[in-house]
């Protein structure tokens, strides 16, 4: 399956890109996506424990299933206001 990954704030700066296409085997979950992203962008590793992940704009957990074609957003701790 393919996912469109969006990187924000520190995640964007550490990955060096603001978006990327990620290809994963069928049945992959959020954890698998993070594993693959950290393998590809090693600088994301220190941030990983602090990241939230949204699939198509909805927060998901590590074990949640991914949907082919979804938009996956890596969201560092927020500091709006």
């Amino acid at each position, binding site marked *: 399956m393919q996912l469109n990954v*969006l990187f*924000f*704030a*520190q995640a*964007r700066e550490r990955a060096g890109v603001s978006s990327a296409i990620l290809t994963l085997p069928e049945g992959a979950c959020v954890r698998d996506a993070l594993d693959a992203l950290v393998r590809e962008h090693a600088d994301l590793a220190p941030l990983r424990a*602090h*990241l*939230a992940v*949204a699939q198509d*704009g*909805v*927060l*998901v*957990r590590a074990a949640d299933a991914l949907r082919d074609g979804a938009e996956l*957003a890596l*969201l*560092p*701790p*927020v*500091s*709006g*206001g």
Partner: protein
Amino acid sequence: MATLSHEPLDAAAATAALQRRDCGAVLTFLGTTRDHHDGRHVTRLSYEAYEPMALRELEALERESCERFEIEACTVAHRLGEVPPAEPSVVVVVASHHRGPAFDACRWVMDELKKRVPIWKKETYAEGGEEWVSGTKLEG
């Protein structure tokens, strides 16, 4: 109506829009950018958002605040991109019949906004260097 804007926020217009003949209280909160943070001089402040999700969360805050508190209306606007010192990065306006719920609701909206909305603030310092302000991990 929630707003994300790369232009200066018009707090006066947002306030005026909620002055209603049936409401006795209109409360306007401006979160303004400060030129100091933890003892460092901040020369530049900028905000980034996951815009579609942030906008939906701001809309949810408007709606939920009207459900949780005895208020008649709530609007939230957040600025993105660079925000010069003393200008508002966020404007929350609440209108209600009585003032107590307006204070409660406005405070609640700001507390929730800082926990729930995918927006990030980066500071650049006079001494050099820049930093994403440490924030709150989003919880599903």
